């Protein structure tokens, strides 16, 4: 048989260690991306042209360069700036900042899809701008953006494997380590692929459940 399940069982604790690190990278990057992405989206939809230009520039730079280059840049640049942090955190920050650019555009589309009438109703009732955004616009924008956000989170999990290239012992890196010891690349990459698939499928399933729950009140 091509796949050696005994080998997978033997090295499963090592893969599990990598999986935990992958979850750390994905989870924290996701939070950074979501919070920063929301702030960037609000800046871009504000009436301040300077904020709009800043966000547009940020998005052009992040979307126009490979994530691997961004990770390497962070990895080599931060020490030059006197910032010495573990490679794990360098990867988390780089992936989070990258994700923020994409998430900002998803949330911006969600905000744009909210009709002018919602802003006007809030204004007439005397809501402050902050409360209008927090209680009326963002909840509706996020509901609209949820499918695209789910896709972005799945992409983020897969992109976390790039952290292996700066030495972070996440799932892919641990797989490479096992492969170099056992020389059974097919078994190792099969096991890694299955674990990534379980992670991404779980996220897709949870997002679909959330989407259904949020849309349930749209059904008569």
């Amino acid at each position, binding site marked *: 048989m091509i796949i050696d399940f005994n080998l997978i069982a033997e090295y499963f604790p090592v893969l599990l260690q990598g999986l935990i690190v992958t979850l750390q990278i994905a989870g924290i990057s996701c939070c950074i991306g979501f919070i920063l992405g929301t702030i960037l989206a609000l800046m871009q939809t504000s009436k301040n042209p300077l904020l709009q230009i800043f966000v547009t520039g940020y998005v052009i730079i992040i979307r126009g360069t490979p994530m691997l280059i961004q990770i390497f840049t962070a990895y080599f640049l931060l020490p030059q700036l006197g910032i010495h942090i573990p490679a794990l955190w360098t990867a988390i920050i780089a992936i989070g900042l990258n994700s923020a650019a994409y998430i900002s555009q998803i949330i911006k589309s969600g905000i744009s899809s909210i009709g002018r*009438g919602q802003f006007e*109703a809030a*204004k*007439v009732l*005397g809501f402050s701008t902050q*409360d209008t955004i927090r*209680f*009326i616009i963002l909840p509706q924008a996020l509901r609209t953006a949820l499918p695209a956000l789910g896709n972005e989170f799945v992409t983020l999990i897969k992109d976390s494997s790039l952290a292996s290239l700066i030495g972070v012992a996440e799932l892919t890196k641990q797989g490479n380590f096992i492969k170099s010891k056992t020389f059974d690349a097919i078994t190792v990459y099969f096991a890694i692929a299955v674990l990534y698939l379980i992670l991404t499928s779980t996220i897709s399933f949870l997002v679909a459940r959330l989407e259904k729950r949020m849309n349930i009140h749209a059904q008569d």
Partner: protein
Amino acid sequence: MLKIKHLNKSFHTKKILNDISLTVQKGKIALFLGSSGVGKSTLLRILNNLETINSGTIELDGAPLDLNTINTTHTVGMVFQHFNLFDHLTVEQNITLPLERVLKKTPTEAQAIAHNLLQRYGLLEQKNKYALQLSGGQKQRLAIARALVMQPKIICLDEPTSALDPVLTSYVANNIQQLANDGYIVLVATHDTDLLKKLDCTVYLMSEGSIIETAQSQELRNNPDAFPRIKRFIAGDE
């Protein structure tokens, strides 16, 4: 008493409102009648600080009305043509959210106020439904209840029957009449001539931004020939 004097509004070179002057007493209804684009909705939007004016003054009970602060003083309430309810919130939350966030009521106080308002408008059984799940008539009532929650002195209704089944027009007319009976100054913009037949109001026929004829609804019903422009509009000739 609401007094509007020489109100003018232009978009670039196009005159939207041309020297509008009128007075509406407390507990009375002013109904602005006219085709689409004659400026009647713009007038209501100006009173809610959703549009600016070029010139003119507005007074309420003898004091000038500052349109810039009108949303924070809650002097005017608005029922929008398409209701603009918060569809992601329940019926009850549509009422309690402005109470809690704007008027700083406690959740218990807000729920008590919402309970009374929803009961009055026959929506108590729907309180846990989302606004999106309501029928047109229910949405209309919720929109009125939401406008009333801020305790304004003036209520504006923009095309209140346009999104409704014709059967519901009488029901809506009763609701509007009740607002006036409760002491609100009620301003209605409509092109629905059925509505004016059911209200005790002052009718202002508008054309190209100007009020071209005014009539008391009772006089109009008794002697339509005395108001030829309104009569022609009702007949569909204007």
